[in-house]
C-alpha cells in the first residue's frame, strides 16, 4: 500500500519516494493534462497515493463521480 506522498517532504527535506509512487504520480500528472480526465484526477490521486486504496468500488466512484 502506498502511504508516502511523493509530493511532500519528510526526513529533513528528503522526499520519500517509491518506484510505484513515482510512476503513479506520472500517470496522474498525465490525467491532469488530459481535458477528458482532468476533472477526476485530484480525487483519484488522493484515493490512490494518499489513502492507498485500490478497491474497485472506490476507483469506480472516483472515475464516475456523477453516478450514485
Amino acid at each position, binding site marked *: 500500500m502506498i502511504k508516502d506522498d511523493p509530493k511532500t517532504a519528510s526526513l529533513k527535506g528528503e522526499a520519500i519516494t517509491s518506484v510505484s509512487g513515482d*510512476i503513479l504520480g506520472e*500517470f496522474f500528472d498525465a490525467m491532469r493534462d488530459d481535458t477528458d480526465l482532468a476533472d477526476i484526477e485530484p480525487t483519484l490521486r488522493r484515493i490512490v497515493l494518499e489513502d492507498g486504496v485500490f478497491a*474497485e468500488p472506490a476507483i469506480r466512484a472516483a472515475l464516475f463521480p456523477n*453516478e450514485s
Partner: protein
Amino acid sequence: MIRIQKIRIQEFRGIRDLTLELKGANFAACGPNGTGKSGIVDAIEFALTGNISRLSGAGTGGLSVKAHGPHVDYRNKPEHAVVSLEVTIPALGGKKATVTRTVKAAATPKIEPPDPDVLEAFESVEQHPEFVLSRRELIRYVLSEPGARSKEVQALLRLEDIERLRGVLQKISNAETKALPKLRSLKHEAEKQLAASLGIPEVSSASIVAEANRRRAVLGLAQIEKLEGMTSLREGLGTGSTAAPVRITKLQASADFQHFRETLTRLQSDPIEKACGEAETKASALEMEGRIEELDRETLLTSALERYDGMQCPVCDTPFEPGAFEAHLAGNLARLEDIGKLRASLESDLGVLKAELVATGNAVNTMIELADKLPTKVEAQPLIDFRTALRGRYAQLAKLTPIPDTRSVLTVATEVPDLSDVLEFFATAIQSLPEPSDQDAARDFLILTQEKLEHYRSMSRDLAAGEASAARAAKAFELYGAVTTKALEKIYADVEATFATYYRKINEDDENSFTAKLLPSLGKLGFDVDFYGRGHFPPGAYHSEGHQDGMGLCLYLALMNHLLKDRFTFAVLDDVLMSVDAGHRRQVCNLLREMFPHTQFIFTTHDEIWLRHMRSEGLVKGRGFAHFRTWTVEHGPTEWDGRNVWEELDGHLAMHDVRSAAALLRHYLEHFGKEACHRLRAKVEYRSDAQFALEDVLSPATSALGDAFKKARLAAVSWGQTAVVERITAIEAAFSEAKKLANNDRWQVNAAVHFNEWTNLRVEDFRPLAQAFRSFTEIFSCASCEEMLSISPGRGEKEGLRCGCGDVNWNLLGKKG
C-alpha cells in the same frame, strides 16, 4: 535507511550471547558450516522486520519464528530470545537509535528514541526486507522463468501497486464496455415502441411534433414549435392525472398488437434466419473438430479473468499478486487464441438473434399484460408458453456451452407456435373496444406518447451516460497503460545499463564489452545477456555458475541502487558468490568498494580465503570481522579470539584433558600463524591448495615480526626517536625471551615431532608451555587495543608497523641522508 553499529544477540537461533561491533562499517562473519554465521543474518533480519525468511516460504512447512526463533534450550521461553541493534541513521545526520525485539513480542519492537523520524526510518527498512540477499534469492533473479523473475523484480522494486491499479482500471473499462450493447438494445426497443405509438415507421423530431400537434389541434392546445429535451407533448392538458388512462385505449391496444405482429414477422425474417444459419455452421465446426473442450477451457479462463478482483482466483480462491493472475492465464489464453476468435465470431452472430428474441419476448409480455386488461378476456396461456420457450432459447444462446444444446436451440430459434387463435381473439377484442371520441383519442394519444417519449429519452440518456463512462474508463486505462509502460521500460533500461556496468567491472578482464537486455512484457521479465559478442542468450545458456552468481549480485545491486539510490545504506550478503573464483572475487571487492562507498555490507562466508580477499582489498578493515572456529549447542559460536581460546584451554587442563588442550593449541596457533603471516607480510612457502599447517606459518610469522622490530628500531634511531627506540628494545627483549620459552628454535628443526610431543605431556608440564605460547602470541599484538600488529601498506615497500588504535605506529623506513 540505517547503518548498524552494534549487534547483541541472546538465546536466538544457535546463538547464546554474542555481541558484534560493526561501527557502521563493512563486516564479515566467517566460519565453517554450522558455526552460526547465518544466525547473525537471521538476527539482523529479525530485529528489523520481525521475520526470519529462512523459516517461511516454500519448503518450510511447520517452521515458524515463534517456535524456532529462540535457542533450542529456550524454545519455551521466547521472552529470552532477544536481538538488539544499535544503529545510526544517515538521513537524520547520523542520529543514533536502538531497536530491540524479542521472539515473544516479535510484532512490537522497542525503538529508542521513539521519535517520529526514527520510527519512520525503521518502518522504511521493514518495508524493504530485500536488504538480505542469500544465494537462493540471487539465483532467482538470474535463472528463473520470466514470469517468476518479473514477480521477484517487481516485488523488489515494489511495483505491485502498479499492477493492482492496472487490474482495477481494466476491469472497470471492460465492464463499462460490456454494458453498452444492452443499453443500445434498450434504446432501440424504446424507439420502436415510440414509433409504434406514433404510428410512424421511424422516429424523428419533426414527425413527433407533427403527430402531436395534430392531436393538440383537436384539443385546442397551442402548437409545439420544436421538440427539445424538456418539451412535453401533453403541455397544457390541464391538472388532471398525468398517469396513463386506466381504461385500455383502442389506440394503444392497436399499436401494441401491431408491434407484436411485426416482431413475430421479424423473428422469422431472412436476416435472422441467415444469422441462425451462420451461427449453426460455426457451432457445428466447433463440435465437429473436437474443440469443445478447448472452448470450455477458453470460456472458463475468460470468465475467470473478467471476475478476478485483483486479489484471488475467482474459481479456487488462491491468492495471486497483482499481475500474476493475468500472467498465469495469458499463456494459456494465447494457445487458445484461434478458438477465442471463433467464439467471438459465433457470439456476434448469436448477438443479433438474442436481441431479436429479447424484442419478441418484450412484445409477448406486453400482450400477456394486455390480455388481462381487455374487457373481453383473451386466453393468454399460449403466449405464456411461448414466452417461456423464448426465455429458454435466450438463456442457452447466452450460455453458449454446451455447444450441442446451442445447436439444438438454433434449429428452433425462430420458430413461432401456432398463435392464430390468440391473434384472432386479440383482434376481435381490440376491435370491440369503444371508439374514443376525437377529444379522448387525442388526449390518450398525447399522454401515452409522452410516456413513450419519456421512456425513450430515459433510455437515450442511459446510453449516452454509458457511452461516456465507457469512453472515460477506456481512456483512463489506455493512458495508464501508455504511461506505466513507458515508465517501466525506462526503469528496466536504467537497471539494465547499471547492471551491465557492474558486471563489466567484475569481469573486465574478459567481458569488458558485456551488455544485457531486460525484456518486459505482460507479467513477464525476460533477461538475456551477451555471450562474448555471439549474441544475447539467457544467463544459464552458456555462462558458468560463477558468472551467474556474479550476474545475480550485479542485478540485485542495480535494482537496489535504482530503488533506494543514496538510501541504500546497508545490505546483508549471506554466503553469495560461492561459485565465484578468487580473481573475480577480488573484482567484486573493488566493485563494492568503489561503486558503493556509502553502503555498509555485511557478509557471511564459509571460505576463509574470501575473508582474506575482503581484508586485503580493503573491503573489510581492521577488526571488522568475526571468524568463528566452532559451535556447540551449549555455547553457540566461538570466535578465533585469543581470550576465548586460552580460557577454553585452561578448561581442558582443569579436566586433565591434555590431548584436547594440545589439539586446541595447535589449531589456534595455525590460525594465529596464518593471520600473523598475512598481517606481517611474511614469506611463506607457497602451497597451491592453501592448506598451511602450523609448521608452515609459525616460523615465518616469527621471523617477520622480529625483522619488523629490528627495522623499526633502526628507523627510530635514524629519526632520533629515543623513546621509541627504548620501547622497541624492551619489546624485542621480551620477544626473545618468549621465543625461548616457547622453544621456538625447535620449530625450525622438526615442527611435526615437536607438536606430537605435547600430547604426551602431563598437565603440570603442558601448562607452562601453553603459558609460554600465550606470552609469545601476545607480543604480536598491541598491548592497548589487543589488535595484531600489521605491516603497511599491504603491498609494495614496507613502510610501517601499526596497530588499530595508533599506540604502535612505527616507521620501518629510516631517515635518508
